[in-house]
């Protein structure tokens, strides 16, 4: 078991060092880049990035990391509007700059079956779900009812490819619901069918990385960018 410490930064993404061997690991990729364990890959744990309210609703009895009291008292944690401030920071421009998007464009990065696609967050705001295919894998990207949480799923159930559309339920207009056109089942934001012929089925979750374009592009140099209407 390795124990990690903050050890540096590499083009705006931090480096961590394990106590046991002194190896340097790149945070965003989980890959050891220098040292005795160079080349090793930390296993990614599936995680969601979502608003606290949404998490509480879905996982009522979880536990939450507490802040360090001294640091909180000294007001050193990020303010609630940190995303605005960070979004305005400079990005480090290396030699290989890809100008298709502005460096600090927020993208939803998805890597599946060896292919990478960046979905600009603004595209998802205009259209949710975004239904797409990466390589041979049918996927969809869904925006939560907080208009900020994002999840991605594979659109296959028991070998069957499904098409998804937004469903607006007049009774609960805020909650995100999807409907598949093959069976008419209703699905929730957790990717589970709640009514209809497929009720109880769970779509396979896909890891997404909410990142700035410049950072996604550094670690996924062959990435494509999703264009609305391209499908």
């Amino acid at each position: 078991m390795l124990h990690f410490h903050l050890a540096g930064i590499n083009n705006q993404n931090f480096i961590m060092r394990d106590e046991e061997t002194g190896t340097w690991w790149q945070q965003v990729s989980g890959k050891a880049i220098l040292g005795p364990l160079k080349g090793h890959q930390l296993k990614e744990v599936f995680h969601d990035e979502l608003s606290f309210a949404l998490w509480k609703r879905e996982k009522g009895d979880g536990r939450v990391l507490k802040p360090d009291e001294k640091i909180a008292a000294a007001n050193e944690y990020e303010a609630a509007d940190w995303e605005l401030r960070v979004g305005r920071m400079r990005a480090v421009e290396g030699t290989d700059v890809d100008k298709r998007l502005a460096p600090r464009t927020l993208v939803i990065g998805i890597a599946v079956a060896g292919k990478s696609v960046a979905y600009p967050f603004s595209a998802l705001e205009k259209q949710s779900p975004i239904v797409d295919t990466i390589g041979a894998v049918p996927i969809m990207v869904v925006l939560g009812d907080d208009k900020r949480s994002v999840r991605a799923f594979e659109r296959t159930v028991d070998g069957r490819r499904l098409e998804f559309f937004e469903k607006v339920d007049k009774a609960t207009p805020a909650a995100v619901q999807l409907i598949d056109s093959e069976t008419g089942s209703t699905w929730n934001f957790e990717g589970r069918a709640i009514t209809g012929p497929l009720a109880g089925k769970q779509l396979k979750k896909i890891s997404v990385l909410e990142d700035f374009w410049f950072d996604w592009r550094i670690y996924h140099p062959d990435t494509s960018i999703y264009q609305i209407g391209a499908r």
Partner: protein
Amino acid sequence: MTRFFQWLNTRRKLNWLVLLLLVIAVVAIVLTPFFKIMPFKPQTPRVMEISYVMRRWSPLFTIAGSVVILTLSIALWLRGRWWSRIVLLLLLVPALGATWLARQNQFEWMFNPLPNPAYAKSAEAIFVNDTDRVMAVTIGNESVAYPIRIMAYHHVVADIVGGTPITATY
């Protein structure tokens, strides 16, 4: 002991030269990665590699270098005039400073680690607003939320979730 320093003193010019080169080397091995690995500066793989090697060897190199530096300084001090003693002190400061800095993690000065992370039940987590974003992990039956405002400061938090040792990073 005095014989040793007397012997050293027969080579004063050489002593000064070695002393100067060593002080430069000790300072350089510590300050190079310090200034290269900084936010808002680009790093190439070569820079990262050189910095890694320097950071890795700094603690040992600076100690060994400082021992030699101190030995030479004592020899030069013993027969030195007042102005050469001042120069010796001025050279010792950066050398010893670098030796100390080689053992520090300046990143953890800026972002204190969280050595004993504590958790609250979600109903009692009043320190998180509903609109704050969290990283959420569920393994087995255990669900944990890591508020991003807290993670953005500490960057690295070790935990065990559903029996699996994990490291949350942001």
